[in-house]
């Protein structure tokens, strides 16, 4: 009875286009943000902040990026890891050469470079579609990874071929402690998620979805496939680029190019499929599922106290994780976001089944 939309009428189109048209959702979201911004940094310990929340947030951001490209614009890509690398290495190179630049500006710069590279590698999408495109985007992944390994300029001639995040200084705020890193990540992710939501509910978002759902028809109603697809690649890569930079600066600290390897690309793709293609919320749910679930399975396995060997637990982790993926797909092929929506629908009808 708590979750009802009856009695809530929208009198203007503005209200109707709001992100959370239902009041309960709005309050829930505000409460969540309050918890995330205030309670978590105060109460969370290093372990939770640093190895659970921060990577979760950053991966969510990358997943939003890929979801824009794959979930909204329908271009399946396996280059997300590569574009993250571009972001990370661009920010590093900018900051190491021009240290006085504000970190936020550097992030934007990293995102823009990634966007340019993304748009470049997006060109084949004008001709190649579906799974063929997916495999073809691996060219970007491998080429980028190779370039950063190969050309020492990118790592500022570091003899070990790695980049080390330079200290972050934002308007005098030195971001060092785990909670500070978490808050910075959270702020960036919140803002960018909001922007993403804005984009996908406006005319740009609609043209992406039109291209995704039926590209010939979209063209016939006047949507230019080239602009639309390349914009999707650029925006998506921007998000991935920023996520990559955050990954390097807020999470890993010191990064080799392999940290953004093919596995990263795959993982991000898994996230959006499991979370829900074409859903911003799904990006978060998917990131949670793919990043956190294995850890929880592992912790649970260790915590059982049965004195199981780590190898056994690890193998079971694989098995359980794989089974859960399949199970979730069978229960709801359209991802966790859809599952959540159905749950809400049921709640709204409750106690009546239909």
């Amino acid at each position, binding site marked *: 009875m708590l979750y009802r939309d009856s009695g809530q009428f929208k009198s203007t189109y503005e209200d109707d286009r709001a992100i959370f048209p239902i009041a309960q959702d709005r309050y829930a979201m505000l409460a969540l943000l309050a918890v995330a911004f205030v309670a978590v940094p105060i109460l969370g310990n*290093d*372990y939770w902040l*640093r*190895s*659970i929340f921060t*990577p979760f947030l950053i991966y969510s951001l990358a997943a939003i990026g890929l979801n824009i490209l794959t979930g909204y614009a329908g271009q399946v890509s396996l280059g997300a890891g590569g574009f993250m690398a571009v972001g990370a290495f661009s920010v590093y190179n900018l900051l*190491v050469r021009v240290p006085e630049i504000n970190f936020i500006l550097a992030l934007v710069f990293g995102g823009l470079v990634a966007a340019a590279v993304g748009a470049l590698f997006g060109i084949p999408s004008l001709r190649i579609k579906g799974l063929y495109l997916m495999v073809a985007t691996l060219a970007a992944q491998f080429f980028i990874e*190779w370039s950063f*390994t*190969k050309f020492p300029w990118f790592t*500022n001639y*570091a*003899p*070990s*071929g*790695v980049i*080390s995040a*330079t*200290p972050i200084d934002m308007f005098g705020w030195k971001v*060092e402690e785990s909670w500070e890193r978490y808050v910075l990540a959270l702020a960036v992710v919140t803002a960018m998620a909001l922007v993403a939501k804005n984009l996908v509910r406006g005319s740009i978002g609609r043209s992406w979805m039109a291209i995704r759902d039926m590209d010939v028809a979209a063209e016939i109603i006047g949507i230019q496939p080239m602009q639309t697809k390349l914009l999707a690649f650029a925006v998506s890569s921007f998000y991935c680029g920023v996520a990559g930079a955050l990954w390097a600066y807020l*999470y*890993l*600290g*010191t*990064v*080799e*190019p*392999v*940290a953004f390897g093919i*596995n990263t690309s795959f993982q991000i793709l898994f996230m959006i499929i499991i979370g829900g293609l074409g859903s911003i919320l799904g990006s978060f749910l998917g990131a949670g599922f793919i*990043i956190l679930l294995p*850890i929880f399975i*592992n*912790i649970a396995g*260790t915590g059982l106290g049965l004195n199981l*060997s*780590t*190898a056994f*637990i*690890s*193998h079971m*982790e*694989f098995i359980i994780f794989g089974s859960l993926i399949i199970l979730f797909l069978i229960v709801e092929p359209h991802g966790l976001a859809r599952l959540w929506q159905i749950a809400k629908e049921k709640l709204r009808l409750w106690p009546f089944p239909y």
Partner: protein
Amino acid sequence: AQEQFIPLLTYRSGPFAPSGIPSANGFADYLALLNERDGGINGIKVTWEECETQYNNDRGVECYERLKNKGPTGASLVNPYSTGITYAILERAQRDKIPILSLGYGRTDAADGRVWPYAFPALATYWSNASAIVNFIAQKEGGHDKLKGKKIGHLFLESAYGREPIPVLQALAQRHGFELHTFPVSPPGNEQKAVWLQIGRQVRPDWLLMWGWGVMNATAVKEAAAVGYPRNKFIGVWWSGDETTVIPAGDAAKGYIATTFGSPGALYPVHRDIGRYVYDKGKGHGPRERIGEVLYNNAMVAAVVSTEAIRTAQGKYGVKSLRGEEVRWGLENLTLNAARINALGLEGVLPEIKLSCLDHEGGGWVRLQQWDGKQWKLISDWIAPDRALVRGQIEASAAKYAAEKQITPRDCSKEG
């Protein structure tokens, strides 16, 4: 009860598990031995917990964070067993005051303890190793002057790790007048035909070094045989010199050489003790017949260095559970001379070492071993690298890092 907690970051599954398993067993078996035979370190029981990283950076960080506060005083020190994880937790560990010990991997320039108070790439770094191999080649050729005009190849996994020795090799090539040819292999390295055609049919280097990892190793040895490159001119780094490199390659591996800092085989008193005190009680971590494998011994050496550092620190701070920063003091003041090594039942297994505030590496000594088709046989004594050259590069690199990060290096003369 007083106890000393050591987290073990291991990888017993995934693509690199074949290397991770013996490493994990060697480390844990030695700790078990200390408890079973000696009742711990000076009576302080050693406790440990494994956490599976799958050789994956994110999981490694998670493991580190999960385990760093366990035990009465938190983690004594951490062996990440992956260069990527080492990078990812180094700075963190510095703030947590937990020393990171990375034997034969990790951040090379961290050997400069002024910039890296909490990082210990002890025993030997890749740079020392590259230099030591060149010294070995010079020995075989009959002196450094004979290197002139020789062709030396460097076959490596195209990655930060594989590229790491190149600057040192280039410097040496210039100094000794040999030609350096580099042969990168695309990861993961299960397909090397192109590169071997170049090595075997085109360049034909007199000696070939290999910085390989995982499936690349065995494949390389096989391909060497396939193009007829002599295996006894083919020298791998220690990560390309274990059983997983040679056994899958079968006969092709006979004569293949690799460096090591923990001599191979279950031939030493310590192995006998492990058998008696650990395996006989059913407390072993792996199959008994695999005691003494190369990576097993390497990891055992890491365990020795770890526990001896704790023992050293107990000398200063008292016999009790120690905190990470106290163990760090132990590491910086660690001296393992021949006598001590013998007393530990490890004579010949590891070189003498002495760490200090300035030098977190120790001597950088390595030995060379050769696969005779059944087992690894030592074929050289401990070989030293060109210390001046290596140290120079380390200091330059560390200084550059310090500048980038705006760190002021410690003044070692003030350390106690």
